[in-house]
Every structure is written in structure tokens, then in C-alpha cells.
């Protein structure tokens, strides 16, 4: 199962550098933006929530103050009626004063008042303002406000809203009032007895105040209830009483002033409670949690739009950055791929310093590879050419013709012993020349080959020159390239001693010097100038005037191909004094193993040479 997901992930993994950079940049930047967006939203949301709660509290404080002021003014009216009107006048003798005083107070506050009335302890109406006829039997003593006043005489009592059931209103209307009742002492004919002063406040004053703060349409609302949870004002008062909806007023009435979290009918909400002093009424502000989000919806979409816009721009920027970063690498990669495909493109050099450096390195590497390849090819060609030349020298027809002609003359002149010697030398010469097709032979065989060659040449040149061999025996058992002495000896004869009369001398020496073998051919011939010496090993265009055609350059190349550049020919010459050509080769013991290694083209290092010797 895991493998399945991993394989899917692997498939999703971007492969190109541009995709990788773009993907990585995008993931990081989008994650940061999403994180920032979320943090911004939650922070903003918390602040907004706090602000809503604070503004609600402030609004409730103001509304509470307005309500308190209103209720205080009602109490002041009640106090004024009681202390300035009722207590100052006798009901029976000064009823006009009482009526006037009540009228004055009523007219001053008629916007908020429905009526002011005084009842005696039997429930009979003593005075009322505005003047109105009482209903036939309003049963005052059984009305709540009267009972409350009589039950607790020392207090003023605010009732819950109710229909005023006292007066016969000719307009056939019924008024919703809140009654403020208190027990008063009435003076009637000098006698004092108890009565009840009723101030009926117009409910519309309170409902107007509450409607003003309930104007918000975001689900947030305020209601007013008494200390028992009885609703005084609620925007859905009738719906609640009819059971269409409910309110948690019973619980809210028990809350102290403050902010509460509650869940009511599955809805989470914040409830802010403020107690209206003296009455014990509770002004309750309800903020459903949906109201918090109501104001946040636009902000939410703004943040979403902003985040999306930033993502949109970042994707573009990431694309540009990734293209700019990856473009030089991709161009470099493309040129390398073309190179690998066999084309010869220009390696792209561009972009940043590091990529330029890399491109330069790749370019120089390819250039070096090209040079090396060309060199290898050249060396191989030269090797083949040298070998071909060497092969040709093995069967130099001119030499063979001359030798055979000399032998013929000897036979014809019945110099049979000389002819026999020459034939045997020729046989040795060819045996070593062939050497079973080997390139590497022992120094001894090479010297033997040189001796055979020189013996033949001496006969041919009728001993006009002498040959001396001074070779240390210790060099015999080392490896050498075959047929390297013969071209030198040929040159020594042709250019050195051939023109001299019986005084030509050629000396062949062989020494082991510091891990090297030095084979020298020295003649006392005409010698060469320094310029000519310097041209012998460098000017391959020189045409051989005499001999097998195998030049010293060829010999030098063959030595260097097989033993390395540090080996080869050393030519020393002075005009009229003679020439010395020395072959310098490493002292590699001759055995089958070393021969095969050398013939394969392996060049021994110094250390290997030492090891070989020790063995």
C-alpha cells in the first residue's frame, strides 16, 4: 500500500530543474501566504469579535442609563405627586389642589405617562389625571400593581407590562403600560389612611428605546426582562408567548452583570447582562456566534481574494525566477546533450558566475578530450607507419639485391668461403629482422643483427671502414626495439665513412647507465653542422639520399612510442670530426612477460622499472 503511494509520489516528483525550482518556490511561498492569510484572518476576527462585544457593552451601558433615567424620572414624578401634592393637601377639602398638582405633573410628562391615579385602601379611585371615567368595576384591589404595593409598603414597585384596566376610554383603545405603584398616606378630612399611588408609564417609551438599540440586522439583539425572567421587552415577544420561538430569559435573569457564553437551542452565543438599578430588571444583549461571522464574511472574501491574487503573482514571479535560474543550466545541458549525441555544438556559456565557470570547465574538458583524441589517433597512425617502415626495412630490396649481387660475384670469383659467410650473415640478419613478428627483442639480438648487417656491409664496401664493438655484457639481457641500430649504422656508413679511404671507423658501444641503456654508434666521418643535427630529428620532410629509407626520426619515434618521450636518440656531431648517435632506452629486463607488455603499448614508469629489475 505504502509502496503504491510512494510510486505515485515518485511519478509526481518533478524532474526538470525548472519544475523543481518552481514547485519548491511555489510550495514554500504559497504555504507562507496561506499561513499569513490565516493568521491575519484569525487575528482580525478576534479583534472584530472583541470590538463587537465592547460596542455592545457600550451600547447596553448607554441604553441602561437611558432606561434608568427614564425610570428615575418616573419615580421622581411619583415622589413629586406624593410629597408635593398628596401630603400637602387634604383629599376632601383640597381636591382641587390635588387635581391641579397632578395635572401639572402629568402635562409636563405626558409623552411618557399614560396616567396618574390615587386609590384608597378599598381600591376606590380618589383622583386621576388625565380625568377619565373609571370602569364599572375594575377590581383594583385584585390587580397586581395594587397587591404588590400593599404587600411591600415601604417600596415602589414596577410591574411588568400589562393592559391598563382602569378607565373607560371612549376611543375604544387599550393601552400597554408599566405600573409604578407605592403605598401613600392620604389625608381625608384630617384623618390619615393608606392608599396607593399609581403612575402608569407608557410602554411605548421603553419599547422605543429598545427598538432603537435593536436596529441592527445581523442577528444580534437586546431584550429586557425582570428579575424572574419575565420578558418586559423582546423584539419577538408575541412569537415567544405563542411558542413560535423561545428565549433563555429565565437563566439570563439569574446572571450577574457580565459576559457569558451559552448554548441555547443548539446555537452558541454570547450573552451580556446589565442590571437596571432599583428595578432589578435585566438588560440582556445576545450576540449569536453567527453575528460575529456576519460582519466577517466580506473580510473573509477580501483576504481570500488577496491571498489568491498574491498566489497568482507569486506563481508568475516563481516562474520567471525559475526560468531565469534554470535557463543557463538547461541551455548548457542541451549543448552537452547535443555533444553527447555526436554533434559539435558551441558549449553554451552564460548565466551566473558558477554556471559560466562550469561551462568553461566543460568546454576545456571537451577541448582537451578532442586534443587527446587527435593525439592518440596521430600516434596510432605514426605507430602503424613506423611499423610499416620497419617492416619495409626488414626486406629492403635494394640492400638484398646488392648483397645477393655481392654473393654472386663471390661465387663467380670462387670465393666460396666469403660467399658462405655472407649468406650466413644474411640469414642471421633476416632471422632477427623477422623475429617471429616481434617488435621487442633483446639487446643481444639487436647487436647480433647489427653485427650481421655490418659484416655484410664491410664485405660490400671491401673493408674500407672498420667496426669496433664495445658493449658491456650486462646490457644483453635487456629489452630493445628491434632494428634501431641498423638504420643508424646505415647512416654512419652512407654519410660518415663511405667516402673515406680505409680510414673509416665505426664504433658501437653499449652501456648501462643509471637504469638506462645507452647504445651508441660513433663514426669518424665528415660530421655535420649544428643546424643539420637539429634538423635530423625534427624535419620529417627530409628525403633519404641513401639507404633503406628508414630515417632517424622513425627510429626516434618508435623508441618514444614504446618507451616514452624521455627516451630516444641523442645526436652529437662536429664537422670533419665525426658523428655520435646514441640510443637511450630504459633498462627493462628481457623476458616474455615484459616483451608482451611493451608490445601492447604499455609504458613502464620509473618505479615499475626498478621493480622489474629487482625481480
Amino acid at each position, binding site marked *: 500500500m505504502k509502496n503504491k503511494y510512494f510510486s505515485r509520489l515518485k511519478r509526481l516528483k518533478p524532474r526538470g530543474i*525548472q519544475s523543481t525550482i518552481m514547485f519548491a518556490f511555489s510550495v514554500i511561498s504559497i504555504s507562507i501566504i496561506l499561513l499569513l492569510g490565516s493568521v491575519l484572518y484569525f487575528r482580525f476576527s478576534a479583534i472584530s469579535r472583541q470590538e463587537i462585544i465592547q460596542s455592545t457593552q457600550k451600547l447596553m451601558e448607554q441604553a441602561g442609563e437611558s432606561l434608568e433615567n427614564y425610570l428615575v424620572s418616573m419615580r421622581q414624578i411619583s415622589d413629586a405627586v406624593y410629597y408635593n401634592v398628596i401630603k400637602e393637601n387634604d383629599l376632601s377639602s383640597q381636591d382641587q389642589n390635588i387635581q391641579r398638582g397632578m395635572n401639572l405633573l402629568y402635562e409636563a410628562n405626558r409623552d411618557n405617562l399614560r396616567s396618574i391615579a390615587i386609590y384608597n385602601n378599598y381600591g376606590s379611585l380618589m383622583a386621576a389625571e388625565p380625568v377619565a371615567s373609571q370602569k364599572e368595576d375594575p377590581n383594583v384591589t385584585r390587580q397586581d400593581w395594587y397587591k404588590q404595593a400593599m404587600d411591600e409598603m415601604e417600596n415602589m414597585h414596577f410591574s411588568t407590562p400589562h393592559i391598563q384596566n382602569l378607565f373607560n376610554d371612549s376611543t375604544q383603545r387599550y393601552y*400597554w403600560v408599566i405600573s409604578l405603584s407605592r403605598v401613600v398616606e392620604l389625608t381625608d378630612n384630617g384623618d390619615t389612611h393608606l392608599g396607593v399611588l399609581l403612575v402608569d408609564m407608557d410602554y411605548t417609551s421603553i419599547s422605543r428605546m429598545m427598538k432603537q438599540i435593536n436596529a441592527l*440586522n445581523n442577528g444580534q439583539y437586546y431584550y429586557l426582562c425582570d428579575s424572574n425572567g419575565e420578558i418586559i421587552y423582546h423584539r419577538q415577544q408575541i412569537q415567544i408567548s*405563542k411558542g413560535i420561538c423561545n428565549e433563555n430569559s429565565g437563566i439570563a435573569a439569574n446572571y450577574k452583570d457580565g459576559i457569558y457564553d451559552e448554548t441555547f437551542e443548539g446555537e452558541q452565543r454570547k450573552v451580556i447582562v446589565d442590571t437596571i438599578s432599583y428595578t432589578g430588571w435585566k438588560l440582556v444583549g445576545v450576540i449569536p456566534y453567527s453575528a460575529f461571522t456576519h460582519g466577517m464574511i466580506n473580510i473573509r472574501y477580501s483576504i481570500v481574494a488577496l491571498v489568491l491574487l498574491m498566489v497568482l503573482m507569486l*506563481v508568475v514571479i516563481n516562474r520567471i525566477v525559475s526560468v531565469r535560474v534554470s535557463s543557463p543550466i538547461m541551455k548548457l545541458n542541451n549543448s552537452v546533450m547535443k555533444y553527447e549525441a555526436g554533434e559539435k555544438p558551441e558549449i553554451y556559456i552564460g548565466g551566473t558566475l558558477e554556471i559560466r565557470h562550469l561551462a568553461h570547465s566543460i568546454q576545456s574538458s571537451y577541448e582537451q578530450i578532442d586534443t587527446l583524441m587527435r593525439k592518440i589517433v596521430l600516434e596510432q597512425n605514426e605507430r602503424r607507419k613506423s611499423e610499416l617502415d620497419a617492416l619495409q626495412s626488414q626486406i629492403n630490396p635494394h640492400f638484398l639485391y646488392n648483397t645477393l649481387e655481392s654473393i654472386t660475384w663471390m661465387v663467380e670469383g670462387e670465393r666460396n668461403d666469403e660467399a658462405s659467410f655472407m649468406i650466413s650473415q644474411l640469414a642471421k640478419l633476416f632471422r632477427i629482422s623477422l623475429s617471429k613478428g616481434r617488435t621487442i627483442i633483446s639487446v643481444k639480438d639487436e647487436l647480433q643483427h647489427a653485427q650481421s648487417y655490418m659484416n655484410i656491409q664491410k664485405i660490400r664496401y671491401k673493408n674500407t671502414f672498420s667496426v669496433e664493438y664495445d658493449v658491456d655484457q650486462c646490457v644483453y639481457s635487456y629489452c630493445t626495439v628491434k632494428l634501431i641500430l641498423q638504420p643508424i649504422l646505415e647512416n654512419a656508413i652512407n654519410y660518415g665513412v663511405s667516402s673515406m679511404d680505409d680510414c673509416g671507423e665505426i664504433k658501437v658501444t653499449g652501456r648501462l647507465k643509471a637504469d638506462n641503456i645507452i647504445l651508441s654508434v660513433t663514426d669518424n666521418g665528415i660530421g655535420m653542422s649544428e643546424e643539420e643535427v637539429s634538423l635530423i630529428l625534427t624535419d620529417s620532410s627530409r628525403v633519404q639520399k641513401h639507404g633503406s629509407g628508414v630515417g632517424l626520426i622513425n627510429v626516434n619515434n618508435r623508441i618514444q612510442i614504446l618507451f616514452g618521450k624521455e627516451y630516444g636518440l641523442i645526436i652529437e656531431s662536429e664537422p670533419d670530426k665525426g658523428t655520435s648517435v646514441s640510443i637511450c632506452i630504459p633498462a627493462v629486463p628481457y623476458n616474455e612477460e615484459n616483451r608482451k607488455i611493451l608490445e601492447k603499448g604499455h609504458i613502464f614508469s620509473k618505479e615499475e622499472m626498478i621493480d622489474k629489475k629487482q625481480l
Partner: protein
Amino acid sequence: MKKNRKLFILLEAFLAVLVIAAVLIMLWGKNGKDRYKVSVIIQNSDDNQWAAFKYGLRMAAEDKGIEMFVVSTGGALTVEEEKSAIEWEIDNGADAVIVQPVPSPDAEEMLKKIENKVPVMLVGYTASGNKDASRLPATGPDNYAMGAALAEELLKDYNGNIKGKTLGILTETTDSPAAVSREKGFTDTLKDTGVEISWSVSGVFDGNEEDSPGNQPKVDFVIALDDNSLTTAGSYSAANNLHGALVYGIGNSTEAVYYLDMGFAECLVVPDEFNVGYQSLTEIWEKLGHYFSSLQDITVSHTVLRRDTLFLKENQEILFTMSQ
């Protein structure tokens, strides 16, 4: 490379679409959603009897966020007048209409045609007279039950013995299916009680019309089967023009309550007009919100008021809704 570019363009296009969508939603949110508009066409819309109904409509409109408008009608409408009033409202953007049907055989057809354009909810009673046959939904009280309740209250007052008593029935109109149902409910309940229906008059009386209740033969009870009739009977009783007859009736105005409160009526059966308004508009709102839902008939309750129970807490709320 090409694939990457294609993917990039697609991604950018997708993000651009999302940005545009978010901005559009934001702008749409700022402009605010269009609120449903519902027009209410009732006869004699300024009459006091509609106070509780209109308060119910207003409360439902506030609760549901509906733009509600009660068309002002001076008096009784004809079918043509009602039709043109409804069409005017529809032309002015009403998404639905609440209609008190004109008591006429043509009303049903006319309203049915209107229903093809916008949802129609009837109030008070059905248009066809026969509730079961009506094809249009209606919200209103059970008129038959109210008539029966009134009769039961009468019987209760006399311990079921009203044999030999006489009564007169007063209705505003005999065409109204409500009046027919109420009378039927009343008479069905009093069947076999021995009470005699001396007279039955219909109309709007405001003076000494020949067939006014005051000019009718003396009866023991006057039964007023609608609010107008009850206030008429109450005013005649208050003026002592009913020859001492006791008034029993159905009504839903503060005037009707006043006559009960003052003792000019013995019993008042009050339909829950608040709920008629509230429930009819709520039902319309639900229909507008759910295209495939259908409007249902809604029957609201009624309350029997007596003078001594008039100011009970639960009954005060009826008065509260009537006083708005």
C-alpha cells in the same frame, strides 16, 4: 517544456477565475441580497380588525427578512379591482401575494391565474367556499369551529337550556365562505336545543336602516358572526337599541373587545389573527426559498373571551396584538 507552460497557463487561469469569483462574491455581499417582496391585499385594509393580522405580518417580515407591503384599500373590493391590484403589485416586483379573496364565484379562477405567475396565499377563508374543493392554499381560523364555539358558550351560559329562547343572526355578508361556515357551525351546534332563530340579517349598518338590528323583532340573543357585525351589535346594545338582547359574537378588533369589556357583549370568540399574518407570510417565505415546495393550508386557533377573563395574562397578549 511545452507541457510545463501549458500547466502554468492553466494554473494561472484557474487562479484568476478564483480571484474574480472571490471579488464578485465580495461585491455581491456588499450590495446585499435581494429581499423577497410580498404584497398583501385585504379588503378595507385600514380597518381596525386587521391590526393583529398586520402586526403578525410585520413580525414575520422582520424575522424572515421579507419586504412586506400591505396595499391600502378603502373598502370592499370587486374581483376586477382585486385582480388589478394584484397585477399592479406583481408588476412592481412582488414575488408573492397574500390575498383576502373577494367573496365571488369568479375569485377562484382569477386567483388561480395569478398563481401561475407568483405564489398566492389566501387569508381568512378559501376562495371557492368549499374548502375541500379549493385549489388555492389558505391561512385562517376554522370558521365552522368558531361558530360552534360561540354556540357552546351560549349553551354554557344557560346550562344547555335555551329552549324557547329566540336569537337573531347578524353578518356582514352572506357571500363570504367564512360567514357561511360560521353560521353553519353555530346553527349545527344549536340544532335540537329548541332555540328559535327569529331573524338573520346581513349588511353594514351605521344608522337607522330599515333592516338594521334595532329594527328587528325583539330577541333574547343577537349573534354577530364577524367583527363588523359585532361592533355594530355592540354599538346598538350600548345605545340600548337591541331591546335588551345579549350579544354573542366573533370579532378581532379592540372595539369588539371594548364592547365585551363594557358589558355590551357577553362573549367574544377571537380568531388568532396575529398567527394568520405570521404563518401566511412564513409559509410564503418557505415557498419562495424552496421552489419545489408547495403552499399548505394553515388553520390557526381561536380564543373565547369573557369579561372576567379578558385581562388574564394570556388574553392580554391578544389585546396587545390588536393594539399595535
